[in-house]
């Protein structure tokens, strides 16, 4: 398929850079310091967007997997792979930043809390998903199997999200996506968080797009020549035709 220039040209990169800059300014300079946690709380503006966009990436894996199973088009498979790689990176980032945040605030790097354990399991499952992709040589076989795993693996995401609601954990319950109507967060902080999410999402789209292009170039297969119409020999065999 011919490479079409990205719609809007440099629009997306510009938007991503602008949003990142705005998020940085909002998070570091504009947003007030948290009354309880002090400066460590500013990690939230990276930790939470990383976690959310990781969820989003895994949702993209799910959608692309289903799309592949319907259409059998390797484009969807490449998108699924790129999204899974991004999701793994962001999940690892969220865990790492969470540890950095937990050390000064909770007092420990790590603890056996339902949220922490389920998030780590989520990371492992998607690493295994990437492994399943390598188990077959034929791209369609690999795509089909990993699509099946991609659908099943997504079941972990609600478990991670609800772990702090279902169980009594050290990790605090969700602030924004919680069951209550009005999030208990200062409006300026909420804006900084929103800017972070927008910036992460735009950057994620950029990264996935680049990666998909790279995968397409790496796995480029010459387009199969469609058979000329009527080229297929027609053979009809009925009993008694032989000698």
């Amino acid at each position: 398929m011919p490479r079409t220039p990205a719609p809007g040209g440099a629009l997306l990169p510009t938007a991503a850079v602008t949003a990142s800059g705005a998020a940085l300014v909002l998070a570091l300079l504009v947003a007030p310091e948290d009354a309880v946690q002090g400066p460590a709380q500013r990690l939230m503006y990276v930790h939470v967007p990383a976690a959310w966009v990781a969820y989003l990436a895994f949702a993209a894996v799910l959608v692309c997997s289903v799309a592949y199973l319907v259409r059998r088009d390797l484009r969807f498979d490449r998108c699924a792979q790129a999204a899974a790689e991004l999701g793994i990176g962001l999940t690892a980032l969220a865990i790492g930043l969470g540890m950095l945040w937990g050390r000064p605030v909770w007092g420990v790097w790590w603890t056996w809390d339902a949220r922490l354990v389920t998030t780590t399991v989520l990371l492992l499952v998607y690493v295994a998903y990437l492994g399943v992709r390598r188990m077959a040589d034929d791209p369609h076989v690999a795509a089909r199997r990993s699509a099946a795993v991609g659908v099943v693996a997504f079941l972990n995401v609600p478990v991670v999200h609800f772990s702090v609601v279902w169980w009594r954990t050290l990790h605090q319950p969700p602030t924004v996506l919680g069951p209550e109507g009005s999030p208990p967060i200062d409006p300026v902080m909420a804006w900084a968080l929103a800017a972070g999410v927008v910036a992460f999402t735009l950057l994620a789209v950029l990264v996935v797009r680049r990666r998909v292009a790279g995968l397409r170039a790496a796995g480029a297969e010459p387009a199969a020549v469609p058979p000329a119409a009527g080229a297929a020999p027609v053979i009809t065999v009925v009993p008694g035709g032989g000698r």
Partner: protein
Amino acid sequence: MTRPAQRRRTLSLRLLVVVGAVGGALALLGVSGLADTLVYYRTPTELLAEPPPEDERLRLGGLVQVGSLERVGSEARFAVTDGVATLPVVYSGALPAVFAEGQGAVVEGWLGGDGVFVGDLVLVKHSNEYRPVGEAG
């Protein structure tokens, strides 16, 4: 390859079943009272109602009672409350910087026979509220 329309139909049926199953499972978990099963820490009320064996290591969680914190040398004494019951805690070691009266905390240790909780690790459990300085409630 040849029947995408048919495949889409069967696949959407299968997805529908999965979505239904996940929805049913979430609803079931919502009403099952799972919240009391996997607990990271126990509250003073629970510990007083069901005193654990003396050698059992456990976690006690709640709010640090306002006015209860006193430091003697390297030892800190404070009380953890859940609004109903209160347990005195003795802890020797450095408290986390964020630790404060009126804030959530989880203490790891043992409940002594004298009803005093002997902690050897203090974790701060912060709430899901984020407020600027001066506005904290």
